[in-house]
Structure formats: structure tokens, C-alpha cells
């Protein structure tokens, strides 16, 4: 009897102790909800790419400059002034002294080197460091011809951008546009092309005939554009690598050049026939034309979704210019824009989550974005005349052009701009003369 009582008592004490003990350990893991932060460009330190030889050292400095410009212009990074750097390039070769970089508040560190190889190629090495976690984030080496250093810089900037933001890069791209000059009633228009940072600019046509709406192929280094031959608009295919031009055909009544499908095999366009404008696709291999819309209203300005399964376009079948989407075969047409004003030039983001457009309301023009179902509409910029949005291949940055009103002498200015999809970081893209109708290339293969 006594033994039982004692053991029961002991068991009771043990149970109580266990309850208390487990209670305490449950309290031990604190859970904190962090809901407040801030939005600001990431401070990053970009060191000159080191080299043994003086010539390559200059290249290394230029490369760091291009990378720094790219990252800074994206609006997501803030390169730290190199005069603030504590650790010097020589000691950096043995590894970063992270405390030195933390001291100047760098969160990432870009280190590189260039070395001329025996076969005349340049070897470029990149190391990207996480200063706070004291780890290497990326380590890559590239081999290229020395004259190609600028392109390698953009490629490296893309690697850094992608690793730190999760987005695909967009620095190794080009922008084709219409270069304009002259008074309003006699505008001279030529095709121009440049790197996305404005460098390496050249003209593609001589301005002899009017050129409009250049568009990039997603797969090849080809451009389509409209050119007027007499009064007839013609669609041309221009190969950037070979410089060869090919005429796709006469397309009377066409106002926009065709856009490519994501697989590059089709072009989609709007054609006017018997006074009715509808949307057609043309297979580039067979040249067969398929009609997609059949409606008395004006259906124009089509653009494919990145998966090629849907199309967004502009129609006034509802009474005013609005944005619609439909399946790639022309079925299931539905309207997605409903706010005040008129909507035009819808372009589907390569990321798939947004459609950009031009909107006219209250006498002003806007560039805006909305989700493919029509919700989340946001205006990014406004102006007297601002239109023609085009997406960078990562779907994060937009380009468009702005035109000022003509003065008494008929002079006006037209400039191309870029902006982040959050609406921040609007920047002018500097061109030799006036510019309009930009089109962004895919990443250069």
C-alpha cells in the first residue's frame, strides 16, 4: 500500500514538473511578424576589373563603368562612389575584407579581372560577393575578343542583376526606333538602332521613304517595319546581322507593322479590307494568311501573350477604343478596359503578368499597365503626347516616347524614355536626334 502511494506521489510530481517544463519550452521559440520595411536601391560596390597589363586595366575600368551605369539606370541599385572604398584592388585579389565593405554600407561587392590569353582572346572573370553573409554569390569566366568588351560588360551586368533581384536581365539588348528630324509637316524619319544604354548607335535606313513602327523578332535578329512606297504601306523584314531587306508584301490600309508570335513563326497584323479592319496572322514559312476577327468594328494593334495562347488587341466594337483579349484562334473575345477614356496599343509583358497600353483621357495621354483580367490598372506616366509602350525582355522595364506640342514654327521634340513597371525611375534615353516608336529587342543570343 505504502509503495503505491509513494509511487503515485512521485508520478504526480513528475507530471507536474513535465507540464511546467514543456510549458516553458513552448514559450522559448519566439515568433515575430516583420511587416514593416523600406524600398530603396541596393547599395553595391563595383570595383574596377583588375589586370596585370595597363591596356587591359583600362578595359577593366571601362567595363566596371558600363556595369555600374547599367545597374544604376535600372533604378534598383545604387553603386557606391569608389572614392569611398577602403580595401584596395591589390589586397582584394586575396579575397574581400568584408568588414571594410560593410563599413561603407555595401551589401554586394562586384570583383573582376581581365587577362589576355595566348590566342588573343580576352578572359574576363567575375565574382559577386554577399557582403553581409560573407559568401560568394556568383563566379564566372568569359572568353571573348577584346573589342567585344562592351557586350561582355552588359552580360555580366545581367548576371549580377539576375542574381540579386531574381528578374531576368535586360542589359544585353538593343532598341530599334524611328529617328526623326525636321518640322512637323515635313518630318524626316529613319530607322535607328542602339544598345539599350544608348551606345553603339547607327542608322538603318536613309530616310528616303517614311518608316514606321519597327518591331523585333523574338527569335532572330530581324525587324519588321512599315514603309510607304508611294501611298502604299509595305511591310519589310530587315535582318540586322546581314543587313538584308525583304518585302513581306503590300498591305494597303495597314497602319501598324506586324508583331511576331513568341515562337517567331507567325506575324500578327491588322488589315483593312472593304472598309473593315480586322486581325490576321500570317505564317512566315508558308505565307498563308488566317483571319482571326470578323467584326464591323475596327480591330487593330494586336499583341501575343508570352505563351502564345492569347492575344490582346484594340477594338471599338463597344463604341469606343478599348482593350480586348481573345484566344489565339480568335475565340472568347472579352473586354478588359473599362475606365474613362480611350485605350490603344496594348502590349503583353514578356513576364506575362501585365499588359501595357496607351490611354487618352481628359485631353492627356498616359502610359499604363493592367493585369490581363483588367484589374490593377495603374498609370505610369503622362504627357501631352506619350504613347507606344514596348517591354524590355524581362518584363520589368518599359520604353515609350513623348512628344511636345509643336511651337508656332512647327518645331517639336520627341524623345524616347524608359521606366520601371513600378512607375519609378523614368529616364530619357539619349539619342542623336529626335526619336519615336521604340521597340526593345530580346536578349541577344
Amino acid at each position: 500500500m505504502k509503495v503505491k502511494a509513494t509511487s503515485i506521489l512521485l508520478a504526480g510530481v513528475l507530471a507536474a514538473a513535465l507540464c511546467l517544463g514543456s510549458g516553458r519550452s513552448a514559450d522559448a521559440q519566439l515568433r515575430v511578424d516583420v511587416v514593416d520595411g523600406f524600398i530603396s536601391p541596393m547599395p553595391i560596390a563595383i570595383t574596377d576589373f583588375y589586370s596585370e597589363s595597363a591596356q587591359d586595366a583600362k578595359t577593366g575600368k571601362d567595363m566596371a563603368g558600363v556595369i555600374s551605369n547599367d545597374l544604376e539606370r535600372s533604378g534598383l541599385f545604387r553603386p557606391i562612389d569608389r572614392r569611398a572604398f577602403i580595401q584596395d584592388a591589390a589586397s582584394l585579389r586575396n579575397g574581400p575584407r568584408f568588414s571594410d565593405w560593410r563599413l561603407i554600407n555595401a551589401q554586394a561587392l562586384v570583383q573582376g579581372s581581365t587577362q589576355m590569353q595566348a590566342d588573343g582572346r580576352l578572359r574576363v572573370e567575375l565574382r559577386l560577393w554577399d557582403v553581409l553573409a560573407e559568401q560568394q554569390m556568383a563566379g564566372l569566366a568569359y572568353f571573348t575578343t577584346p573589342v567585344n568588351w562592351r557586350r561582355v560588360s552588359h552580360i555580366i551586368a545581367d548576371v549580377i542583376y539576375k542574381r540579386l533581384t531574381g528578374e531576368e536581365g535586360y542589359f544585353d539588348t538593343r532598341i530599334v526606333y524611328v529617328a526623326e528630324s525636321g518640322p512637323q509637316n515635313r518630318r524626316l524619319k529613319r530607322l535607328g538602332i542602339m544598345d539599350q544604354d544608348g551606345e553603339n548607335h547607327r542608322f538603318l535606313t536613309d530616310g528616303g521613304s517614311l518608316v514606321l513602327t519597327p518591331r523585333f523578332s523574338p527569335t532572330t535578329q530581324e525587324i519588321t517595319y512599315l514603309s510607304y512606297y508611294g501611298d502604299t504601306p509595305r511591310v519589310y523584314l530587315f535582318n540586322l546581322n546581314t543587313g538584308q531587306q525583304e518585302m513581306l508584301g503590300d498591305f494597303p490600309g495597314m497602319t501598324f507593322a506586324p508583331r511576331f508570335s513568341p515562337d517567331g513563326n507567325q506575324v500578327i497584323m491588322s488589315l483593312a479590307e472593304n472598309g473593315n479592319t480586322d486581325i490576321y496572322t500570317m505564317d512566315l514559312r508558308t505565307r498563308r494568311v488566317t483571319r482571326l476577327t470578323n467584326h464591323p468594328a475596327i480591330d487593330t494593334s494586336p499583341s501575343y501573350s508570352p505563351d502564345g495562347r492569347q492575344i490582346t488587341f484594340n477594338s471599338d466594337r463597344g463604341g469606343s477604343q478599348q482593350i480586348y483579349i481573345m484566344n489565339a484562334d480568335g475565340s472568347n473575345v472579352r473586354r478588359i478596359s473599362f475606365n474613362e477614356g480611350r485605350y490603344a496599343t496594348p502590349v503583353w509583358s514578356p513576364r506575362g503578368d501585365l499588359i501595357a497600353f496607351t490611354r487618352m483621357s481628359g485631353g492627356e495621354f498616359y502610359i499604363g499597365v493592367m493585369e490581363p483580367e483588367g484589374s490593377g490598372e495603374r498609370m505610369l506616366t503622362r504627357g501631352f503626347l506619350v504613347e507606344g509602350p514596348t517591354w524590355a525582355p524581362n518584363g520589368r522595364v518599359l520604353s515609350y516616347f513623348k512628344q511636345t506640342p509643336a511651337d508656332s514654327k512647327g518645331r517639336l521634340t520627341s524623345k524616347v524614355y524608359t521606366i520601371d513597371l513600378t512607375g519609378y525611375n523614368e529616364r530619357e534615353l539619349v539619342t542623336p536626334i529626335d526619336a519615336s516608336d521604340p521597340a526593345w529587342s530580346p536578349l541577344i543570343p
Partner: protein
Amino acid sequence: MGRGALLSALLHVAVTLILVIGLPSFVSPPEIAAPIPVELVDLNQDQKPPEPKKAEPAPKPAPEPEPEPEERVVDAPPPPPAPPVEAPEVSEPEPEPEPEIAETPPEPEPEPLPEPEAEPEPEQVEETPPPKPQRKPMLRIAMPDKPEEPEEAAAPDDALQSIQKNVDKMRRKQMAQAAPSDETTAALAPSQASALAQNEIIRIIQSKMATCWRLEPGARNADDLIVVVRVWLNPNGSVRDVKIIDEGLGQTNRYYQTAAENARRAILRCQPFELPTKRYEIWRDMVLRFDPRQMFGG
């Protein structure tokens, strides 16, 4: 056995009687002194943080009777007075019985003066809007000294006044040191005390992280990118280890990886965390959940 049982029974009865009646007293009862009349004066009339104003006009070396009778409150057994932590900010150098404090169970006042006074502190902190400034004295004991300087500047010619001020100073020091007091919070129910301390620790971490957590708003489905991180801290507040707890989106989603790295960078940037050492067992191992939805207005 009968004798044993009888003896046991007798003892039981004796114990019961003692319990009921009480032990016989062999000492005469102590004299009860006549109660000292205490005047409770409303402090607000005389209260100024820089007390020298009062002392200077009366440069008498002789101790004066009661220039500030309210100081007597020190001796009388008052209910726990105002939180001393507020003293530097709220400019109430003398703690006084405040109605709010009545909430706390009045503890035996005798020596542990600072302790009962510190008790209502956590509760008070929660009622007032800015808990942060009140926390500072907890960590930097030097703070309460500042309001004392003007007092010391006043020549303590008045001996009583100097005594009062010294006691004040002492009490404030004790209260500041005892602020993160475990002894007082231990006086509350353990779960109550640790819950209060937990809330305070959570607040400290949240406000610190707000200055370190850099967000990426343009990411795809940015408001879905919730990151859960487990953090181990050293006693000095530095980070011992950080681990991202995979919530299923997986390493393949580059946006999630970026968000996770940003969260990790925020934690590393925020160290060392200034948290009460006495409560180390609470914040030694914790889970931080970074949720951007509120920031994106979603």
C-alpha cells in the same frame, strides 16, 4: 500499539489546539506609537524637474522642517507609485501614488522599494503610445542621471532636501537597474510576466527590422513572397546563425530566393540586437516571418 495510538491521538489533539488557539505568548505586546500625521500634498503644485529653483532662494545650512512634505511618502507605506522609468521623460522626478497603479497587487513595501515600483512599469508601458523611449533607461543606466544633474547643481544646503534628493537619486538608479527586473516580474504570475516581456522583445525586433529590411516591390507576385527565417542570437545580440525555413515555394522560384536573401541580409544588417539579457532564453532562438503584404497595401 494501544499506547502508540493513544500517544498519537493526544499529539494530534495538541497540534489542533495550537492551531486553533495559538501559542502562549510570554512577551508583553509592543507599544503602539501614536500615528504620525502625514499630510498628502498634491505634488503638481511644486513639481519642477529642475528643482534648483526651489533650493536656491533658501540658502540655509540648517536643515529645515518640511519644505516638501510629500517626500515623506517615501517612509509611509504607499501603494506602488508611478513607474520610475517615466521620470526622465515625463519630468516627474518624484514618484507618487497614482490611481492607475492600483491595478497591481500591492506588494509588501519594506525594503524592496524599487521592486514594487518597477512592477507596474510593464503595464504602464503598454498603455502609453511610445514604448520605445521608455525602454531606453532599461539599457542605458546613465540616462536617469541626467535629470539629477540640475538637482545636484542646486546647492544641497538644505540637509533634508539633500537627503531627499539622494534618496531620490538612489531610488531612480535602483529602479533603472531593476527595470528589466526579473524579481519583480517574478512576483507576477510567471506566464503573465514572460508574456509581457515577450511582447516588448517583439516590439524591439520589429522596430529595428523596419530600418534594415529592404524590399523588392516589382517582383512577380511580390506580395506572395512571405519568407520565414529562424534566427539564433548570441547573448550580446549578434547573430549566431540564420536559416531560411522553406515554405514550399522552393529554391526554384528566383523571386522567392531573392526575397529570402533580402530577409537574411536584413537580419545580418540589424545585428547586434539590443535585447534584455535577463530574458535571453526568450530571444535566443526565434522565428521571424517577413510578410510584405501590408507594405504593398494588399
